[in-house]
């Protein structure tokens, strides 16, 4: 990343190759439309290129930093879009929208860590998993989620924290993600 920060396009190309699929996958999962996901991913990588000097490796991996940028950009895109689109994007089971030939090789991508996270997330109580997914993947604010679920804001915040803390308890190997 030091080379990227110094304006080395070849170094950036390596970063792009390593993280483009993960970035696009997250953007697509959040936005639900390929065109929007492409915009989000493109904006994110150009932002990363232009702000490489801000990367601090003591605060996480390049993968996490990259996906953090994608997440923020996708939230911006979602909050500019209609609630209808956002509800659709935040719905579970977008897999059927993905054409089979577009999938990456599951053997190359899947690993024990992501399986563990998936299982852990799926194992959360439904109300906790729901608020986490609506917030993280749907881009909804806690006040919007409280309104959608007809629940007090404090309850929504509590479910978020309980869910994340349970995930933390399950995921003993999270440090390996994105390494």
């Amino acid at each position, binding site marked *: 990343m030091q080379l990227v920060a110094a*304006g080395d*396009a070849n170094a*950036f*190309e390596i970063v*792009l*190759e390593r993280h*483009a*699929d*993960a*970035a*696009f*996958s*997250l953007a697509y*999962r959040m936005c639900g439309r*390929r*065109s929007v996901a*492409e*915009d989000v*991913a*493109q904006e994110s990588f*150009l932002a990363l*290129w*232009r*702000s490489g*000097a801000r990367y601090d490796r003591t605060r*996480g991996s390049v993968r996490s930093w990259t996906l*953090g940028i994608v997440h*923020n950009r996708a*939230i911006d*895109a979602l909050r500019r879009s209609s609630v209808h689109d956002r509800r659709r994007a935040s719905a579970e089971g*977008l897999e059927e929208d*993905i054409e089979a030939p*577009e*999938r990456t090789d599951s053997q190359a991508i899947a690993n024990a*860590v*992501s399986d563990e*996270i*998936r299982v852990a*997330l799926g194992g959360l109580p439904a109300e906790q998993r729901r608020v*986490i997914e609506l*917030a*993280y993947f749907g*881009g*909804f*604010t*806690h*006040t919007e*989620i409280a309104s959608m679920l007809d629940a007090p804001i*404090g309850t929504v915040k*509590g479910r*978020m*924290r*309980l869910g*994340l*803390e349970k*995930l*933390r308890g399950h995921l003993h190997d*999270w*440090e390996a*993600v994105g390494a």
Partner: protein
Amino acid sequence: MSSREENTGCEQSVDAAPYVLGALDRDDSFRAHLDGCATCRAEVSELQLVVDTLPATVPPVLAPRALRERVLATVRSEAELLRAAGHQTDEPPKLASRRRSRRGPFMTAWVAIAASVALVAVIVLNNVGSTAPVRVTVAQVAPSISGAQASLRQADSRAELVVSDMPQPPLGKIYEVWLSRGSTSPQPTDALFSVTGSGSGSVNVPGNLHGVKEVMVTSEPLGGSSRPTSSPVLRVVLRA
């Protein structure tokens, strides 16, 4: 109340989870609170590690090849501009204000280059994967779309106009590329284009550019025009 909340001793720690999930309103005061609360910073730091794992649950999808190519084209153009701008772009001006810039050296260089877009720069790049050099000519941008960036990339007999941060054409309009040979009216091309929501786009410039002095872009009614109906928003001045 969970045991964790009892232990933290800060009632605002309840916002840590929505914060790391991106679920607080952007103008929420929690970010400012974090600066002065070590307890909440620690809470955020721990929960952030969990949130960083959530993308791993997403069904994997291949990023489109065109996306990678667009990003790399822009990055390579900007990298060449940075190189061409030289190290002096990183140095403060001799009569600089006493206010220190919060931008890093790279951003300082970037801003310096952005400011120079009104001028014309021609750079010859090595074309990866090909023996033909790529000639990049930076476009002049009309004040009406200030902030936009554009360049014409020529390799062999092909030319492509690449734009970024460009506004959408007005409602019912589309961007049209024109070729000007100086002595005659600009010639229309069938290169019509719009831009993505982020303002990026590219279009192949058809025809032989031999003798062309300027490549221009105007905003025209859908379907294009045979004569320009508006002033150019982009102008690429080509050297002989």
